């Protein structure tokens, strides 16, 4: 378990290092154009990476059980924060997602996502068998999941909201909720979510362009078109780090959500697959940590964190190659990070702590006992 903890740390660290290099390559032209300085965005990114690493180390030392006590208060507070964001946040590109605390501005959605995972894990452990009961168990969990993801959704931040919901449902699914309940609530979500998506113009347009492109077989939008050109010119081996041409303002905000296109251009097919395998390895490591964790809360927390990271990574990549409609979510560890990178590091820190704290107890708890605990 200790080994797994270090593995997670080093893979994350390596990916953030790689990310920094790619951000440098992808943002330099834009930085010069916009800020008249080659490293303007890179410098800001490096600060966030360093902060992230510090937080990762700090949180890997905080016992994960300590969050149990305050998870309810925290999730209520963050719900209020999300409501406040809806009311007060300035609108960026038609979406008010940021809250400004003077020194630092951050997306409450990032905090909410982590707190929801913690709270769901806490609730599932508390409800135990009751989770199979719709009214007394499942409904509580589902309401929290829908409330938080719904608040994120109507910011509007459709993609983030949907992914938070998906992560929550995955936790419920793994946590032992009845499949029937999940399917019904999923149906309910699709109907109401679909209606909500058509309600907001910027998400509606994105969905509509995606649907149109399926008919015509044409390119999805300019960002994806430019991203695909980047992947294509990368070929098998790539053009080499720092040699991307698509980052010369052809691909808008290449250092952000579409950074994987620049990565694919510079590192080629081999590099892209290697990065995907890194995420898979991290996913596997996370699952093993979850599996080997003694308590249900720790298990679900570890699972939720690693599932969330993986699903974000894969959806981001799928977006950049035109597999799913364009969404505004970053590629974990790699993208030019706002504060979301810091919250990502915190969640990785928690995962490492789970791995480290279960190290000693691993041999004491018999395997079959834990099994029966889950089954009961």
């Amino acid at each position, binding site marked *: 378990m200790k080994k797994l903890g270090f593995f997670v740390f080093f893979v994350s660290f390596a990916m953030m290092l790689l990310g920094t290099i790619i951000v440098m390559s992808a943002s330099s*032209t834009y930085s010069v*154009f916009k800020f*008249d300085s080659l490293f303007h965005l890179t410098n800001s990114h490096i600060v966030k990476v360093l902060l992230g690493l510090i937080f990762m180390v700090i949180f890997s030392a905080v016992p994960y059980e300590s969050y149990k006590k305050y998870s309810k208060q925290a999730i209520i507070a963050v719900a209020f924060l999300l409501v406040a964001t809806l009311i007060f946040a300035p609108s960026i590109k038609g979406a008010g997602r940021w809250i400004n605390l003077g020194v630092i501005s951050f997306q409450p959605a990032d905090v909410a996502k982590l707190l929801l995972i913690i709270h769901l894990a806490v609730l599932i452990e508390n409800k135990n068998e009751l989770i199979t009961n719709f009214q007394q168990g499942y409904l509580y969990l589902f309401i929290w999941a829908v409330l938080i993801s719904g608040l994120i959704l109507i910011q509007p931040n459709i993609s983030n909201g949907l992914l938070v919901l998906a992560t929550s449902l*995955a936790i419920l*699914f*793994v*946590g*032992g909720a009845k499949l029937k309940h999940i399917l019904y609530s999923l149906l309910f979500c699709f109907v109401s979510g679909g209606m909500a998506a058509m309600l907001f113009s910027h998400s509606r347009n994105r969905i509509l362009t995606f649907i149109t492109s399926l008919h015509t077989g044409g390119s999805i939008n300019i960002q994806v078109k430019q991203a*695909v*050109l*980047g*992947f*294509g*010119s*990368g*070929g*098998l081996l790539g053009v080499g780090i720092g040699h991307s*041409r*698509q980052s*010369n*303002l*052809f691909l808008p905000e290449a250092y952000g959500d579409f950074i994987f296109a620049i990565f*694919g251009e510079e590192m*080629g*097919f081999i590099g*892209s*697959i290697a990065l*995907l395998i890194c995420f*898979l390895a991290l*996913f596997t490591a996370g*699952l093993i940590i*979850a*599996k080997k964790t003694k308590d*249900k809360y720790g*298990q*679900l927390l570890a*699972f939720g964190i690693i*599932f969330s990271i*993986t*699903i974000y990574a*894969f959806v981001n*990549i*799928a977006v950049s*190659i*035109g*597999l799913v409609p364009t969404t505004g979510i970053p590629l974990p560890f790699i993208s030019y990070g706002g504060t979301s990178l810091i919250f990502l590091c915190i969640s990785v820190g928690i995962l490492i702590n789970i791995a480290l704290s279960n190290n000693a107890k691993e041999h004491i708890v018999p395997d079959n006992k834990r099994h029966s605990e*889950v089954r009961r």
Partner: protein
Amino acid sequence: MNNSRVLFLIAGVFIFFLAIAVKLFSIQILKSEELKYLAERQQTGIENINAERGLIFDRNNVLLVYNRNDISFYLDMRMALSKEEKKKIGEKFSAVFGKSVSYYSDLMNVSGKTICLEKKAPSEKALLLKNFKAIGLFYKEEPTRIYQYNNLASHVIGYLSNDLHGVNGIEKTFDNQLKGFNGQMYVEKNAIGDMITVAEEQTKAAEPGNNIILSINKSFQIILEEELKKGLENFGGTSALGIVMDPNNGEILAMSDQHDFNPNCFWEYSDTLRRNKILTDTYEPGSTFKTITMSALLDQKLCRDDETINVENGKYKFNNVFINDSHNGNSTLTVRGVLEQSSNVGMSKLVQRIDNELFYKYIRGFGFGNYSSIDLPGEAEGSLKKPTGWTPITKAFLSFGYELSVTPIQLISAYAAVINGGTLFQPQIIKRIMDSKGAVLNENSPKSIRSVISRETSARMREYLRGVVENGTGKAAKLDFISVGGKTGTSQKLVDGKYSKSHYNSSFIGFFPVENPQILCLVLVNSPERGRYGGAVAAPIFKEVAEKIAKLNSKLFQSNQIIKKEKPELKNHYSAINSESNITPASNNTIRKIDNNYALKNNLMPDLSSYSLRDALLCLSKLGLKYKISGSGIVVAQSITPGIKIQKGNTCIISCQESKINGAVIY
């Protein structure tokens, strides 16, 4: 945690992974070539490198036309500038260019397009803005053609349109020679079109255009233009045309059409003013044409010098048409006298002795009714009826220059044949063409078209024409120190199909020295207001021109005369030309390029002396120095001592002087 459910999710994630991998494979491996092509198409581009246009020199290598790279400043208003930024730009530009701040703020009061803040600013001023940066502000180098002496020889040189194509004169005829070949460079661009890197190995450098050395002599040109201007002031008139030609080879030494224009700002002048009327406008030559008639008669030995002709006191009815003499009062004149007194009656009587076909053949032989094929655009061929179309009076009227129309260039070429021994030369305006490195590409040799009259006839005609100036209508052209021959001409202009009583063309064509003509000069004043006869209007102008040219080159004439006498007469013109062209290599050496590489590499001031002006300017702008020029030609002095460390932005004053072929400074 439910194991089977976790496995189910793992399977889901793995399928997701596979889908991504397959899609990546299809994009990055299968479609790679196609996408790479599309990407490169938008990422790279071909940029033109403008070739420097060739320079134009006069026959003594005086630089007349060169290029300067001016800098235009543009502002992309799509960048949505803030008020403060606009104010900053306005104030800076106002400080540099001296225009008001509000002028610039008015310009910037648009959005969504690129505006030009300052067009073709001289590089001295543009350098002041070198370190000034603002969002959306960019500059472009734009070549500007500089006509060093403004109006000088404007009709010969022509001008460039805004898209850098020659429109008139030499600039048009030799556009292909002058323009050179544009180079290309392959550049990597960003989405906005800014250049990022240049692929050096794929860059093809621009080839500068060829330099043209005119046959024009700048000092003759100045004399001719000044005198024509004075003449216009003295006598009035719509225009005054003048040509100075070397009769022995057809080279044009000066050519002017007053009023002229300034090719540096050609757009301020009307089309009519920019047209070279010497080539484009035809007129009835009048009495100046009697020389041609007389040459034909003498060549056919159809009259003797001392023969007397009854000129009927200047009024003679011929086939029911009256022919009048303007200078009447004589009852009889000798054949010489007919020409000297310019008697129309005498001419029309004499011309009856020659057969129609033969007379026509002579006129054609002298080049009338045909293009002179000078290397300048827009030439007219004039009109000359064939003998089958002649009426009974046509020959008589032809004999004194009516019923045909000619251009001044045709007439002066014909006169050259009359006085030079009988050979008609194609008039030439170009002496040689050199490439930008100074190698001669094309040396023009005299192009003789045909022999029209015999050498004896020519010699007699020279004497006749001397008589016109000494005893006849051309007395006003007489010079004390050198013998002059010539012929006056006054022709009524056709206005609305009738010969006008108030509009005349007054002309004079003269040459000197009579014994061995070196300079032939035509002066034509259109509709003079004071005076009408060629002898009273054009001849005095000719005299001034001739006197100044002769005085300027008195030594030259003497030495040339000696050369001529030594050589066998037949090869006269050729030997003269050959001896001149032998000197050419030396002239190239005087404008040599000194290798100042060492100085340049170490950022030291190079020695510019004996640089051509263009090379000097190129060198200075490369060094980032501002410059001021005095004079033109070859650099003789510079204000920054060679070998001194250069400080960018300093001003270097260079003074230039024009040099003659053999290296001696003559101006």
